């Protein structure tokens, strides 16, 4: 065990125990930073200052270094995502097959840019660098479900459905 005291869990929330479990499994080694951030991100959906501070302190990683790691990798998010997430793949195969039109359509309808969430917190629009389903390009992930051969009209219908059910 480390020579100086570990930070207490930030709250009663059980998810902190899951995060702590990942760190314990790695013996609280500093190199477990990214693995632990993955656990925290999948437990909470995003990483706020409380989470980064807790993980950094527990693993004895300087705060700025932890923040540098979080912001280096696209997978980590500092803000909570919307209730629904539409991720359009903009890998090369999807670009050649018109993924830019999908992004433009979604942007126009939602009035937000990729990486943003609608002000009501309902829908997040994201882009991805290739999800590896190029054989079915262009593809998008609708709440994590992969949909291939996507058409702008089809995407719009999905977004309208989400907006209506809010």
């Amino acid at each position: 065990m480390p020579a100086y005291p570990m930070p207490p869990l930030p709250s009663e929330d059980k998810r902190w125990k899951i995060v702590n479990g990942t760190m314990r499994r790695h013996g609280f080694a500093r190199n477990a930073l990214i693995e632990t951030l993955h656990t925290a991100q999948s437990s909470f959906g995003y990483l706020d200052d409380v989470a980064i501070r807790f993980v950094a302190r527990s693993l004895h990683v300087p705060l700025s270094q932890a923040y540098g790691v979080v912001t280096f990798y696209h997978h980590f998010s500092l803000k909570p995502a919307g209730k629904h997430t539409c991720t359009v793949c903009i890998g090369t195969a999807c670009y050649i097959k018109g993924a830019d039109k999908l992004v433009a359509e979604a942007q126009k309808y939602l009035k937000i840019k990729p990486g943003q969430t609608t002000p009501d917190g309902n829908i997040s629009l994201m882009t991805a660098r290739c999800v590896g389903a190029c054989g079915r390009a262009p593809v998008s992930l609708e709440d994590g479900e992969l949909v291939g051969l996507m058409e702008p009209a089809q995407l719009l219908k999905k977004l309208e459905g989400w907006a209506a059910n809010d």
Partner: protein
Amino acid sequence: MTSEELLQIAEASTAEHEQFDFQLNVCMGTGCMSQHSDKVKAALTEEVAKSGKHCHVRQTGCMGLCAAGPLVLVEPTETRYGNVHEADAKELVDSLGGKPLERLETHLDKYFQGQQHIVLENSGHIDPEKIDEYIGRDGYQALMTALTQMDPQTVIEQISKSGLRGRGGGGYPTGLKWGMVAKAGKGQKYVICNGDEGDPGAFMDRSVLESDPQRVIEGMAIAAYAVGASKGYVYVRAEYPLAISRLTASLREARRRGFLGSNICGTTFAFDIEIRLGAGAFVCGEETALIASIEGQRGQPRPRPPYPAVSGLWGCPTLINNVETFANIAPILRNGPQWYSSIGTERSKGTKVFALTGKIANTGLVEIPMGMTLREIIFEIGGGIPNGHTFKAVQTGGPSGGCLPEEHLDLSVSYDALISAGSMMGSGGMIVMDDTSCMVNVARFFMEFCMTESCGKCVPCRAGTAQMFDLLTKICDGEATHADLDLLIDLCDVVKNTSLCGLGMTAPNPVLSTLRYFKHEYLEHIDNKYCRAGVCACAGKAPAKEEVTA
């Protein structure tokens, strides 16, 4: 585990499947899953139960032809069905034992005939989560032979003789790399499998990890034995959840069967593997950046030398190979290096898996012997350009590669031929473009990719890609001059020669290759404000000269 026990498992696995009259293999790769192949499998299972036929329905990995998913392969008749939906299940099961269901047959003999499967030999034929099915197809024989009958040096010699070169892009001879790590002292060493498949438009590694993960584990174990490592890491993109879950299950199975852990195959050899998740950074495909990422840091490359073979993970000698490279190891040891080196060209041996995508009829994964021409791949296996459009360019090598025009279609695919034509092998993305693609816009697309994926450490890559992106945008928008084009060409030279790592050094490649073969398109945007593909915003912006006269 002894070789007799291994044989027994293999025989039991084969016998288990031979008791059935038919096998229905349902593709459960990411491509077909997106077409709900899981529901197709459930429907087939239900229909088989109802029909009372002696038939086994199982999940398998990717069968390659993602465009026609969901795919079902009937064994032993080898009938291939495409676009199978739940509603087709009854008809399909009824047809077993009679005439094939013509309505759903793929009729793509050419697609499969032109290929030669080594890496993909089990894809679509085994359940990736069942280690015994892998053993039933000669799995782990190579590891058993290596551990019980060869010393590490012999293993390295066999790999060297096979002529295998790294499949991650660089094409460094695999045997040489292993030899370097083997020679680097006697202390702690590591083996890393690079599954950070970052090239957009490439999904070979995902497919191999989803379809035949044991093959990669076996390759890594053999490598670890050869170089003297006791610990391995597989670095996989977090974007590949299915590959991660199958790999996790497979590691557990391999431990259960004693191919990982201590006293492997009854010898003193000990080795285990951990998974590390990538977090969305293309630059982590670079060896030193990948190591930094496994160490829990920002994925920034550091100058080489020292190479990872000497000083890698936590300063220890480290072997890093790509997924496809490791997938080639077991077959080489099983069939001998001469068999492997008889395939391919003089300096590029074996086969290569390509992800054939873009404006092409048969999109999907193909594995072809090195030396096949681009024309054969695109027009015979790939079925040519659909919807009456004409071929314009084929892009290989991802953001580090280049675009080759029609006059290079007869180029035979090998590391050296692609480089001399101004592109590169890369990890295996092959994206076909037709006359609806603007080559300047394509170059701009790749430059945007490199700009956002630059780690920001060295100046030429960080600031250079941003400046080049701005210049390309200016050209696309019809606002550039010839001076801008000259500046772009100059920046290409500077960034290529002064950047710290491979990402920066190759970032100008898409610009250089399109300038080499499609310079007229650049000039049309600059001089005539004309985009022949009609995708750029320059249209309608008359040249300055005409504005004056108007």
